[in-house]
């Protein structure tokens, strides 16, 4: 069973690391936007690239956050009924509902791969004044989906361990589910 728990720890650690790096993208987004305002008003020379680059960074930032948030169990859910169940019953319910999660993720992984490879093969650009390549941003959807799928598998393994009292995972490790959340 040690292979299983090593896989679970590894995936969670990977998502943790990716999330911490992705979180830093907020700094360049801020800098580019301020730079654009400064260029426009103080130097009277608006640029063609700042807004579009910020845009692309934001897209990557938003989509890549998924795995990290999953690793922290941060995606908002309604725990009205769920929280009244015993831990093992929760495990069974979670195994059942994960079917819908995997349907969604597999569709995403499959078709985001299609989209990204099409975009890469044609070296797709945005056709704006600056005209940067956009395949890296489309590729990020695929990478993000795979990371979320992996974290979802980890979660399913946790739920199976809880439901069937298996030893490779200790439910005490599960952090409290309600962390941050709100728009």
């Amino acid at each position, binding site marked *: 069973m040690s292979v299983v728990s090593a896989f679970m720890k590894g995936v969670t650690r990977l998502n943790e690391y990716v999330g911490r790096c992705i979180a830093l993208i907020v700094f360049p987004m801020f800098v580019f936007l301020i730079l654009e305002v400064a260029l426009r008003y103080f130097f009277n020379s608006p640029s063609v690239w700042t807004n579009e680059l910020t845009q692309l960074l*934001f897209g990557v*930032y*938003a989509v890549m956050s998924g795995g990290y948030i999953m690793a922290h169990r*941060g995606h908002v859910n*309604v725990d009205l009924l769920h929280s009244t169940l015993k831990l093992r019953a929760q495990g069974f319910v*979670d195994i059942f509902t994960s079917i819908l*999660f995997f349907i969604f993720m597999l569709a*995403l992984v499959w078709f985001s791969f299609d989209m990204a490879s099409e975009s890469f093969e044609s070296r797709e650009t945005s056709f704006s004044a600056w005209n940067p390549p956009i395949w890296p941003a489309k590729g990020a*959807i695929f990478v993000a989906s795979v990371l979320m799928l992996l974290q979802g598998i980890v979660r399913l393994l946790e739920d199976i361990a809880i439901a069937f009292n298996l030893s490779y995972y200790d439910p005490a490790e599960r952090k409290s589910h309600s962390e941050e*959340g709100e728009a």
Partner: protein
Amino acid sequence: MSIEVMTLLFFGSLLFFLLLGLPLAFVLGGVSVVFLYFTWGFDSFYMVVSQIWGTMESFTLVAIPLFVFMAMILERTGVARDLYRMMYLWFGGLRGGLAIGTLGICAVFAAMVGISGAAVVAMGAIALPSMLSRGYDKQMALGVINTGGGWGVLIPPSILMILYALITGVSVGKMFAAGVMPGIMLMVLTTLYIVVRCALQPDLAPALPKDDRASWPEKFRALRSVLLPISVVGMVLGSIMGGLTTPTEAAAMGVLGALISAAVYGEFKWSVLNEAAIRTLKLTGLTMWILFSAHAFSSAYQSMGAQALIESIMAMIPGGAWGTIIAMMVIIFFLGMVLDPVGIMMITLPVFIPIITALGFDPIWFGILFVINMEIGYKTPPFGFNLFYLKGVVPPSVTMNDIYKSIIPFVLVEIVGIILIMIFPEIATWLPELLF
């Protein structure tokens, strides 16, 4: 399968999986994939991915992480603490003064940040212990913080308004302008409620004893604390309303203001900024993932033709145009108890907005009603974010039950506010018409 049965199954499975505790983003995404398969087949899943890409390409949404980041930094600076001290010196001598002053700080905070949690956390940590130790009633103190914190989404800037503008196609600047007067009105109404309640039951919120009150020079010195927040507000709202920048760039100006505040308070440290960045990623990311899958969801139900069905059901509601508006408000109110605002927007607005415009109502006005309703949703159990935020910072003597009970009178005040805006739409529409 008939469209009626399909729609029933569609929304039924949404509710079913939600109640079983699967996160909203995955319920929306999964349900739409399954239904797309039965209506358009396997290849239609490409649409789900292209919806995600379309959402990533929206420049307006870039404002979200920046406004959140700004709030996360401001929450950690001493801005809230100094504001509270100022207010304590000025209003402490009045009956209910600390409660009214807390409302004022919440309004200033709301004008700086675009989310509702920041003021709740800051005031729950600073104002609540202070009010309780001065003999304020537990529920009065809790209710004030909860209600004031919710104004973050009504008084501009506001992330909910940005999303509303994006979905409905109205201008973000107009939405922001429309929120100003209703925000002030709610503040006046809530203050009136506190004044009247304290006049009837003086022991709920006693005035400070004479020796604890401040001298005039002290009071004026404390006024300095408002300078920094006011200039941050000026930077953000001034640049949007003055037409200098886009809302997204104004959000970056706000981050600049927050960073300056952090520097003034000696909190300009890597540890503070890094932690703020990580919390920003979490909050932005979960909003964006709901948006990603909700886009897929609403296009799935449009492609099924469910929209026409819901429109015809709405048309059957008695009471004409106003009956429809009230029915929508009631639906949103109950959804607000269990769902989060972004999800509610994505599910209801694509259906509601065409009806609203067909009936001849102003979508900006409806947007304000919607946002106030969402604000109530933030503080109504079982699923109100502010309740959990507040529970996270209060002393152990305050139970979740205390928090639940504390909000009842304040929710009623806000419902009165919604009714006033329905009767006098000018409260919302006057300022945007004047400015734009």
